[in-house]
């Protein structure tokens, strides 16, 4: 299976980031990137730069909080963590996602 490019992930990026942060706690952007790649076994490969607008947007929306800390490599990095509002949002988006995918699956099986 070939890797999916970023634009096809539009709309699902929020979902992925929230999911990763909900299960793993505090992480910096690069770690989130690696995590998404790893879990999806490299099927979902981000254009890595596009992660940051999403992180900032979700931070502004109150779903994430961020703070600066030191990384394993001893460099300053911005760490993100999910908030309560973020968890609520995650629940809603997860539900809608499964609704959509099952609807598409039904259509495809009929066609």
């Amino acid at each position, binding site marked *: 299976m070939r890797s999916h490019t*970023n*634009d*096809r992930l539009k*709309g699902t990026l929020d979902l992925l980031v929230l999911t990763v942060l909900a299960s793993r706690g505090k992480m*910096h*952007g*690069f770690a989130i*990137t*690696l995590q998404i790649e790893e879990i999806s076994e490299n099927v979902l*490969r981000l*254009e*890595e*730069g*596009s*992660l*940051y*607008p999403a*992180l*900032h*947007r979700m931070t*502004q*929306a*109150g779903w994430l909080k961020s703070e*600066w800390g030191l*990384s394993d*490599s001893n*460099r*300053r*990095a*911005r760490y993100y963590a999910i908030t309560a509002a973020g968890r609520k*949002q995650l629940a809603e*988006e997860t539900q*809608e996602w499964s609704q*959509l995918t099952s609807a*598409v699956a039904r*259509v*495809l099986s009929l*066609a």
Partner: protein
Amino acid sequence: MSWFNRFANLFRRENVDAELDEELQFHFHERTRKNINAGMNAEVAQHDAMRRFGNPTLAKERAHEMNIVMSIETIGRDLSYALRSLRNSPGFTTVAILTLALGFAANTAVFTVVNGVLLRPLPFPEPGRLFLISYQSKQRTFENQPGLYDRDYLEYEKHNQAFERIATFNEDSATLTGAGDAAREPTAMVTSSFFSVLQVRSAMGRTFLPEEELKGNNHVAVLSDKIWHDRFGANPNILGKAITLDGMEYSVVGIMPPGFTFPHTPAFWLPLAVGADPGNTYIRPVVGRLRPSVSRQQALAELESFAQHQPPGPGERREDMIAEILPLNDLLVAKVRKSLLIFMGAVAFVLLIACANVANLLLMRGTVRQREIAVRNALGASRGRVIRQLLTESVLLALCGSIAGILLAIFGVRALLALAPAMGVPRLQEVHIDARVLTFAVALGAIMGILFGLVPALQATGNRIRDFLNLSGPTATARRQRLRSALVISEIALALILLSGAGLMLKSFMHMRTVDPGFRTENILTMTVDLPDSTYPTTPAIQAFHSRILEKLSSVPGIIDASAVNWMPLQPALVRGDFHLESGRKLPRGYVVAKPAVSPDYFRVMGIRVLQGRGFAGRDNTTAPSVAIVTQSVAKTLWPGEDPIGKRITLEDNPQAKDWLTIVGVVDDVRQQILTDQPQPAIYQPLQQVTRPFFLSHMSYVVRTAQSPQSVAAALRNVLQGVDPGQPVEIAALTDLVDANISETRFQTRLISTFSILALLLAAIGIYGVLAYAVTERKREIGIRMALGAKKSDVAFMLLKGTLVLVMAGVVLGGCGAVLLTRVLGKFLFEVRPTDPVTFLSVTAVLAVTGIIAGLLPAQRASTVDPVVALRSE
């Protein structure tokens, strides 16, 4: 490390917050490190990190945008945000500004002309108190300017209480000699009160004294600034010196300031004495300066009661007479006002279409930006706050458009003035972009920005926040689609109205082009002279002059035939009047004929057919019996069923024996005065038998040439200067003279066609935009349809059907509008009715074809949608 530096520089390039830079650089650094650990060399590792990262500038700006959302609080920030936002989508911004610039440029250019001609007050002190005074018959045969009979003027001057002073004037021309080449210059004959009524002073010297109206004192002249510069080297010593006009000396008493050109653009003002003799039936414009305490209505009431006691003009009935007090500017602009206002309306349509296009673009952009807006809403920005931000953006867009429009309009105004017929539009010298025009353009920009920005802003912010944060909801999409369709329908409707107007004008113009004036125009050159009384005081002297010229012309190689006529047909000046029948029978009421005096060869040169009897011959001279030739319509009107040959008429009111003219022939009617009028009746006299100098001193020599008319122009000049070097040379091909009759229509047709093509283009762009966007938006639906077995052609047809529905709706709406609105063109149309069905059908077809072509491209693209890709894209 050059790669790294270059990459890092990208981060530093703009003044963005350092933390964001650091965060992104951290990511890049970590990815590179990971790659090296995986065994890549440093360069490959960095390369890979960059590739994976994608566009760092984009990431940075987007992230930055997300942060900036929070901090907008003031208009200033709104503005800088709007600027940034527009800069971030250069494609959208360019298309929107260009579209608006076209619309604004057309409006600004036309408004500049309207402003200079109609709105800007005449350049006199307190111009609001200057009025024209008019009392004359509504039924006058000539389309006249407002004015008073001379006798009424003299009475009114004595008795009126409403005006401080009144003045009268008329326009004329005179031959200037002794200052370079002899030339015919426009003059204005004015009473001595003229300058004080207008309250203008001379720049040098003085204006006229009351006693200078009287014979003996009246050889004084005031010069325009322009002629003073052009012909007298701006020499101040000219004051008190004599200049020669029509062979007579006038002493220069004053020079007017540069801006003063009233009534039109005279080179000289000369004193006018208004005669009180009972035979004087001259009507001249009269201008008065109203007393400050008197209103226009009061002045009119006074004029009406005054008029009760004045007798109507000869042959006129009191019930046809009308008294009027009109703004002074009417004298100059009454004729062009309507066409200028129509142009203003036409360009307003173009602007509306442009704005509809931009509103559509904003609607689409609103869809794209729904997440950004939703984030702001989620962060607590009120709906009003977000609308304000979106309006700031649209107003900014509109203002950029209007500024670009003003720049374009500078060229537009030049083009307009270059195209405008020289005599057609008055006050052209006053047309330029001034503060009022700038205010107009900028205010229009702001208003339009709010107008076309409001609906998209309401639309973009009107839905619940959740709709945006979730995947795009189908209801919102449908609503936006409807709104966009409505905008496109109105664009099509507006474009159709404009196209109909242009189509009608074009058809009318084509009709005019093919009008047969009744005479030949090809290969004919004309030369016109105005012989001054001073040099040619007697009839024999004038006759001798014409004979010599004609004789010399006939021996010029290249000239087939030479002839002369005192007033050429289809020229501004034409002498018409009544006449008397020998039988004593009265003429039909208001029946007037043109009275050209012609040399024997005139009919042959002009190709006017002699239908009955004979043409004139050399033997019709002073000693022979007086003869005349009438046109066919005269013969039919006066002697229906009879033979007109041998009937006798006279052009004199108190005829002597020799004034009775025997009709010897009948010729075809020609269009004498206006190309688009019916041919007018005329009574021709042989030149040699005409005795009044008035009918002889203005003469056009009309020659038929073997080759192109201009080939003998130099020869004509030599002939004239050989006979009298003091005569100005006025040579023109007859085709050009006749063409001048339709120059105004040509100008109007060109202008309105340009506007309507602009409208058509903008509408086409609008249709294209909406369809292209619909295709993108409906990709999923199209994908499903295709997955369900729809063929490519089915999908393309479905979308084209959508276009057709839009076009049809627009055409129906526009058709109704056009039927209502093209009526205003009625006066300008020739042999075309404002509701001409052929024109309407043709422009509808043009519009429909354009619409379909504009819709084809998106439809074609839709049919290439890959259902698998489309279904997975969301």
